[in-house]
């Protein structure tokens, strides 16, 4: 018998069940998954944007409001100057057409590689409960842009800030339908506390995460 058959049979024998599952068992599981009910959730303030901002700041993510996507290059230029960071970056293809050069920036719309120091992305949505960004990988939303560079700048639309992760799954089922290859929830810059439990920012991912909120 295969390892699979052995393990499944062992499970059933240990639990005192007949060797093959009855249809009723399978139906019960299938029905539960089809319904995917939510369990009790914690209270999250009604002002989702304020809650997101507060929690994000707590995670050492910086947050700034801009009036529209057209203002993105100027806001990025300001941020990079203030932090004394290089003026070159990579971005998701959607943002490649913005007027970066007009702000003295050199920005390429391609996936990030090891030498890129700044990555500019959007987000699928954001979670107010924890100040978290949700990223779904795909053709136009490469995962490396938010991962390899030392600085990650993310554009988030306020209308895409939802209360909690349950609401993000609702959006995902509605907007994408199936699971993308990678869904990443990002909550601030990467960190480690492995040495003497001292929290240090910038372990293997970005050292800083900057969120620009658009309406």
């Amino acid at each position, binding site marked *: 018998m295969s*390892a*699979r058959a052995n*393990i*499944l049979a*062992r*499970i*059933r024998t*240990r*639990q*005192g069940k007949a060797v093959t*599952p009855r249809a009723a*068992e399978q139906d019960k*599981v299938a029905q*539960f*998954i089809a319904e*995917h009910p939510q*369990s*009790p*959730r*914690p*209270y999250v303030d009604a002002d989702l944007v304020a809650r997101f901002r507060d*929690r994000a700041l707590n*995670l050492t993510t910086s947050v700034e409001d801009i009036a529209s996507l057209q203002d993105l290059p100027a806001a990025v230029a300001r941020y990079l100057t203030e932090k004394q960071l290089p003026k070159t970056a990579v971005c998701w293809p959607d943002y490649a057409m913005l007027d970066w050069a007009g702000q003295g920036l050199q920005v390429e719309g391609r*996936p990030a590689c*090891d030498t890129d120091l700044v990555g500019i992305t959007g987000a699928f949505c954001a979670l107010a409960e*924890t100040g978290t960004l949700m990223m779904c*990988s*795909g*053709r136009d939303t*490469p*995962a*490396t842009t938010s*991962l390899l560079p030392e600085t990650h700048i993310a554009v988030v639309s306020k209308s895409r800030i939802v209360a909690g*992760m*349950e609401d993000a*799954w609702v959006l995902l089922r509605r907007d994408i339908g199936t*699971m993308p*290859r*990678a*869904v*990443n*929830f990002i*909550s*601030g*810059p*990467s*960190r*480690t*506390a*492995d*040495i*003497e*439990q*001292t929290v*240090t*920012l*910038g*372990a*293997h*991912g970005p050292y800083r995460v900057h969120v620009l909120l658009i309406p």
Partner: protein
Amino acid sequence: MHFKARVGEKLADVKLQSALKKLQGNFVKGRADRITELDNFHEIRDAAAAIRDRTLANLDVYLDTFERNAKARGTVVHWAETHDDVNRIVREIAAQHGVRKVIKSKSMVTEECALNDALIDAGLEVVETDLGEYILQLAQEPPSHIVAPVVHKTRDEVSDLFAEKHNAPRLTDIPALCREAREKLRPHFLSADMGVSGANFVIAETGSTLIVTNEGNGRLVTTLPKVHVAITGIEKVVATLEDVTTLLRLLPRHGTGQSITNYISVTTGARREGDSDGPEHFHVILVDAGRTKLLGGDMQEMLRCIRCGACMNHCPVYQSVGGHAYGWVYPGPMGSVLTPTYVGLQNAGDLPNAATLCGQCHVACPVKIPLPELLRKLREQQFELKLKPWFEMYALRAWGWLAQHSWLYSMTTRLQARLLKSAADDRGMIRSLPFAGGWTDRRDLPAPEGRTFRELYRAASKNG
């Protein structure tokens, strides 16, 4: 495995003791603070236990569902009955794809299997990328905590180790040490052809695997190499995205005292048409290796465990001796339950007794595992299997007989109480007792007043 033999050495280790103090401060206080963010914490905790019980009750059907949905997205699903099977499967996958370098993110299952050794023996280069695990790989030591593997090491020791192994100037500042490790490891991420990770959960609904990390190494391991292998225990399956969401509210809070970990990465299948990143091949290995032995009996509740580490952080015994004293992969109360069931009660020595049964672990456990209850059951099994030292067996049997004979019991205890009283010094303390040095070597025993509880009770009821 001799827990008792290691304890003395650990208690005398000054560096270890100072390292363990910090753990209590950060993780214990962190959990207490973070659970207050959940106004309905107790409801959420009840739901979490129910979510774990849901899949355990129909484990085979949920695993089958997971497999079907994972396969539909191009994932190759393997089943491993033993630790050796895991090592063999990983070696086969490596050979199949011509792999030479393997990068790993933290996985306790692979610690169970001693996978690194098996891969190195097969001629592969293996690099641990979690900072803590990387330090341990350099030092050639096993982890001492399931969440903070290197909690037993001080910064000074890490400085020495890096200076020696990296052949570089000795840095002492913690951020500088982290930067040094980042720069050493980045080239490995970029050049490895296989990434091995664990999975905190696998999701039946979508056929996905999920890992939580803070460092981002887990994302790199599951994104950059052309092959990704996720290895996890069969008990880690949850039904739906909603169910896993509830567990994710508790895991980081109980693990590291965070509301959420920096990264939660859910991966489903290999790279898709048009994707610019992600592995070309995605394998999942579902591991039994003793887990089914816990099903269907007294111990099934143990399989709810989400490996948060809260039980060890809150355990006065773990806090005093650290993880290495427990002798195998899993320390603390959860380890004292898991190790005897995985490796056999006869090989686990005194582990079921390595707890005071104070109950803190049960209170702290996010999925309400009655750890003291399970330890007590293991002690009973030890007694039944005659695995206790002979004098303990006889003493317990004699006590059992005595307790069943009321008049004899009352006479013996009366005699004892009087005797003990007469052995006391002028402070009412007993400094040493024959055959009970363990009680009196390091402290004095307060002597009884002279009359037994039953005598006092009888006198009080007469007067009352």
